[in-house]
């Protein structure tokens, strides 16, 4: 190696070459698609495939070149401290990964620019500056806010939204804009901010390196005292299962209610207050309030399924693996924690709704909606309350379902299964995009005959699901299976009931022959609650615990 910067750059390449080669492969596939005519001409609108591939490539570059590592002490995604012992300046340690990140994202952008920006008025140079600055802001946020842990994703999200907003700003100005709202002005501001971010990151790494730590954040002492004052577990546990439930709850169970509460208080709450005089926003905000647990549970479920959330290590921690509990007991505890977590999250939602709707909401649109529903349901007040209760119950089961969706994959240490599931998901998304899946309802309603193949497909999936469940249940204790099947039965009945209610309302607006569509809705509802995971998860967990 000739010099430390080259060695550091080589290490970055060596570590992420798989991801970078994958990006090149996606690019080549896209070009081949255009050359063969399968994707469409280059001059037309950006193809869905191109948009998808470019998005995957950009996310991969950002993911790979964050330049963070999990430390031995368990801290996730911090600046690699192992490099601090190298005879290299802190400037070099910070500059090399930033330059590597900027180079990669710029190369990527200019590789895709032609295929994605037909007829756009924004100059490629301006977008290039935004991409480079985004990389600097992103890396700075990851390195300097390591204390926030996984919550850095929120900061990164804010940075992404802000950069998007800046990108659209020049085009939104009518007439002659001031210099600071032109592309040049904005590029200068963003570049200056990126430079400041770089200096901040450099100083932060230098401080970490020399002092071995960072200055305590404001109120750190107060926070530590508050945390210590919180009541700990003072009583013993009645059983091993109770102890394991407490452990899982403390570690993963309370995360979803906290996240849901956070979103409601920090996002929905302010919106509902500022828009309290605009009745048009009430129903959408109620919808988003009800959707919050479901939307939060979807990404959190991917981490919840792991033996140890937010880690690159998929093996079961020896602390858990050496406890005298069977794999099935460990999975049963996880499922129970998911159920409690989903239920508590919905209690938080209901509590928020009660406070909001009774305190500062204009209830006129909600009353109107309730009256409409009352009219649809044969003027039965009981039916209206029943549908509301059914909606909440379905929400709880859907949240629960999303939490345990990744259970058997998360508990598996096999990279083959992980990669296979990722490829399967990717292929499904790709197929859905190529088939314009968002037009499915319109296509279904256009001709009742369209329903038949889909209904057959759903029926086959249902049969396969039950077959797989029956095969994997052999090793599951009958007591636990009975409990789970009871929950499954209630959940599935709720899904089916709600699908029938919704279908009844849809038919009022869309008077078609709906027997086939109704059957399809029921079949889909029957597919929603997981059945085979109860048997699959313990077997993959056992394989992970007792490694070959």
């Amino acid at each position: 190696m000739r010099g430390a910067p080259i060695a550091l750059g080589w290490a970055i390449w060596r570590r992420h070459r798989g991801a970078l080669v994958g990006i090149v492969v996606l690019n080549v596939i896209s070009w081949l698609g255009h050359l063969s005519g399968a994707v469409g001409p280059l001059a037309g609108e950006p193809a869905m495939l191109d948009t998808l591939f470019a998005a995957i490539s950009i996310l991969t570059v950002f993911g790979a070149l964050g330049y963070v590592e999990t430390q031995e002490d368990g801290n996730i995604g911090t600046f690699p401290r192992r490099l601090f012992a190298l005879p290299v300046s802190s400037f070099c340690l910070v500059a090399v990964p930033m330059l590597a990140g900027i180079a990669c994202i710029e190369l990527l952008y200019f590789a895709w620019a032609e295929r994605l920006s037909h007829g756009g008025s924004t100059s490629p140079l301006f977008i290039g500056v935004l991409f480079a600055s985004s990389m600097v802001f992103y890396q700075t946020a990851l390195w300097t806010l390591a204390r926030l842990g996984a919550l850095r994703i929120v900061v990164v999200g804010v940075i992404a939204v802000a950069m998007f907003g800046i990108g659209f700003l020049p085009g939104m100005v009518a007439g002659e804009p001031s210099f600071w709202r032109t592309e040049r002005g904005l590029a200068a501001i963003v570049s200056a901010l990126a430079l400041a971010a770089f200096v901040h990151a450099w100083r932060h790494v230098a401080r970490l390196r020399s002092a071995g730590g960072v200055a305590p954040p404001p109120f750190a002492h107060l926070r530590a005292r508050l945390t210590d004052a919180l009541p700990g577990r003072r009583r013993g546990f009645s059983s091993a299962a109770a102890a394991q439930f407490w452990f899982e709850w403390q570690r993963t169970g309370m995360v979803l209610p906290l996240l849901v509460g956070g979103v409601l208080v920090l996002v929905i709450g302010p919106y509902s207050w500022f828009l309290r005089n605009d009745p048009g926003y009430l129903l959408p905000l109620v919808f988003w309030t009800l959707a919050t647990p479901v939307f939060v549970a979807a990404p959190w479920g991917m981490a919840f399924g792991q033996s140890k959330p937010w880690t690159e290590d998929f093996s079961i921690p020896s602390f858990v693996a050496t406890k005298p509990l069977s794999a099935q007991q460990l999975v049963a505890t996880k499922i129970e924690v998911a159920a409690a977590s989903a239920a508590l999250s919905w209690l938080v939602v209901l509590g928020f709704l009660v406070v909001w709707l009774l305190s500062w909401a204009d209830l006129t649109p909600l009353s109107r909606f309730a009256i409409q529903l009352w009219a649809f349901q044969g003027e039965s007040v009981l039916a209206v309350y029943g549908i509301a209760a059914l909606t909440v119950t379905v929400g709880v089961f859907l949240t629960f379902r999303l939490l345990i969706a990744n259970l058997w994959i998360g508990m598996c240490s096999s990279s083959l299964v992980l990669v296979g599931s990722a490829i399967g998901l990717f292929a499904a998304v790709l197929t859905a995009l190529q088939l314009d899946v968002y037009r499915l309802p319109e296509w279904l309603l256009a001709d009742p005959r369209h329903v038949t193949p889909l209904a057959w497909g759903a029926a086959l999936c249902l049969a396969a699901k039950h077959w797989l469940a029956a095969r994997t249940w052999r090793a599951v204790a009958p007591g636990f299976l009975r409990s789970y099947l009871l929950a499954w039965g209630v959940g599935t009945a709720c899904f089916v009931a709600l699908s029938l209610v919704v279908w009844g309302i849809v038919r009022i607006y869309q008077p078609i022959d709906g027997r086939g569509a109704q059957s399809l809705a029921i079949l889909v509802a029957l597919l929603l609650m997981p059945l085979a995971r109860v048997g699959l998860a313990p077997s993959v967990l056992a394989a992970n615990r007792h490694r070959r």
Partner: protein
Amino acid sequence: MREICDRVSSVTDIVAVTNLSRTFGAKRALNDVSLTVTRGTVLGLVGENGAGKSTLIKHLLGLWRAETGTVRVFGLDPVAAPVAVLARVGYLSEQPDLPGWMRVEELLRYTQAFYPGWDPKYAEQLRDQFDLDPRARIKTLSKGQRAKLGLIAAQAHRPDLLLLDEPSSGLDPIVRRDILEAIVRTVSQEGRTVIFSSHLLDEVERVSDHLAMLRAGSLRLLGPLDDIKMCHRRVLLQFDLPQPEPPSLRGAIRVSGEGRSWTIICNEENLPEIARAPGARVVDDGAASLDEIFVAHTGASVATRLRPVA
């Protein structure tokens, strides 16, 4: 379950490993290892880094499946019956994998729930002795304090088998002494079965009554510690003429030295033959220390020239 319990109570071999082999890629971590550990034995497991000590212990815990051969703990396969085995095992590793967010008292209550035989008074006594604040969060504890807490969690249920995987590695001498004393007390007062892996041979010598020495995954020595020490001799030979190369002596395990003086580590039965080495006389003959036996069987230091063992 009843059958399992009946089988467990009738077993005198706490651990029985037969022809156990394990490979990680091209590396052979364990090579045809067979050993038995009877009730009340304290087995010291020694070997270089990468010799297979931790791998063997992980097999006993059921964290690895046997590739070939069998592993039985209390007569059971720890992979097939993990609950029955782990309920009677205490385990402490070099870096106790304890959740940092828990408080000390919470960890003890949590661990207690898994073991019906947990002795809260004993746990409290050890906690007092180790001076651990019950309200302290584990993430705020030092490495030594974590090791002590891990030891309490591993032995407060008075396990039938205590597995200690380099428990004092990287700790300061005072913490090492505290931990060792707790182990010695467990052994002397309760007569428990202990498998204790360590690099520190004085620790092993102090605690163990049996010794297993691993090298590159193979078991080089296994037996009572006193027997092993008795049957190894250190012989100092003085040659009439300087020897340019290490002398080739049948039965020598290790030959080191230079010129006229050469130190030979050998088995008891080979001593007469070595004493008859042509042109040499025995200047000194004594029992080899465990350190010398370890070095003789596991490798050489930089300053030592070795003869291959016949």
